[in-house]
């Protein structure tokens, strides 16, 4: 599968995750979000930066529990809640945020 | 002259001992995979006991993967994959200890 961003074709897997993580850019993130019927707000971006930092540090995309914890540590306890992340990234926040952030699909994630 | 390769971690100390006892004058020993852990100074005594002149090598990528670059015994010469090939070519046989 491919995703076309500003005339460039980018390869994604069957579920929409980037095949090559180096293809990611903020524009690509917006395109992935758009394909998921999401418009990215500053609140989304704050969380996306947290999940990208997590990946840099720990070299894997987090499951929901550590994702919530990481957001809480970085953005404050009021943001480190499943319900908050569910409003930003409906359905499965850890998977959806990872996808938009250009990370692999989280393993160990239910 | 033979190149001996060892890929077993120190937990399998019998493999290291068997390998070291089989070395002849002029042979080379190259530690690869988990075998590079046997380059830690804790195992120096095993190499001290070798009666013949041999050369000791350890594979660079395997050392780096396990965080051993600064921990290994200095007697080990670090080689990359190309160096591994060179060693294999320079010796008339390769003996694998695994």
């Amino acid at each position: 599968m491919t995703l076309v961003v500003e005339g460039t074709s980018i390869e994604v897997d069957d579920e929409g995750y980037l095949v090559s993580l180096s293809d990611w850019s903020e524009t690509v993130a917006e395109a992935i979000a758009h394909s998921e019927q999401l418009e990215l707000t500053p609140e989304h971006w704050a969380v996306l930066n947290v999940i990208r930092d997590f990946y840099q540090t720990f070299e894997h995309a987090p499951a929901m529990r550590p994702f919530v914890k990481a957001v809480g540590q970085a953005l404050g306890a009021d943001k480190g809640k499943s319900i908050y992340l569910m409003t930003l990234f409906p359905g499965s926040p850890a998977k959806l945020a990872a996808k938009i952030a250009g990370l692999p699909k989280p393993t160990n994630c239910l | 002259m033979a190149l001996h390769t060892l890929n077993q971690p120190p937990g399998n100390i019998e493999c290291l001992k068997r390998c070291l006892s089989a070395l002849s004058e002029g042979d080379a020993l190259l530690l690869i995979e988990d075998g590079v852990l046997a380059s830690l100074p804790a195992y120096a005594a095993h190499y001290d006991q070798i009666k013949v002149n041999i050369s000791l090598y350890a594979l660079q990528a395997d050392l780096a993967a396990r965080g051993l670059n600064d921990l290994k015994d200095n007697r080990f010469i670090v080689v990359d994959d190309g160096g591994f090939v060179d060693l294999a070519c320079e010796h008339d046989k390769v003996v694998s200890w695994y």
Partner: protein
Amino acid sequence: MPDKKKVLIINRRAPYGRSNARDSLDVALTCGVFEMPISILFADDGVFQLIGNHQAGDIGQKNLSANLAALPMYDIDQLFVCTESLNTHGLTFDSLEHSATQLDQTAIQQLIQDHDVVLTF
């Protein structure tokens, strides 16, 4: 809901040469997702997993050390290391990247007794 079983994972293998260390971590993280109480003991060649500064890209593997660093994020903080194994391999407690409580043989026996399920890797 009945009390969750306490799980002890015993790591006895060196990282990378075999898949044991990776498999063990997958089990630990999965148990963490289920909020099961997990303890991890590193013994024998398993203590080599606690050495830091891994650069595993050149052997085509993921950096186990970075993944281990994430354990606290999964609320897994009961980490133990066998003192005798550290001594055998000439490793000092200070040389380890990941901190773990040192246990002697008697304490390890007690640790096993204190858990409902013990998985060895």
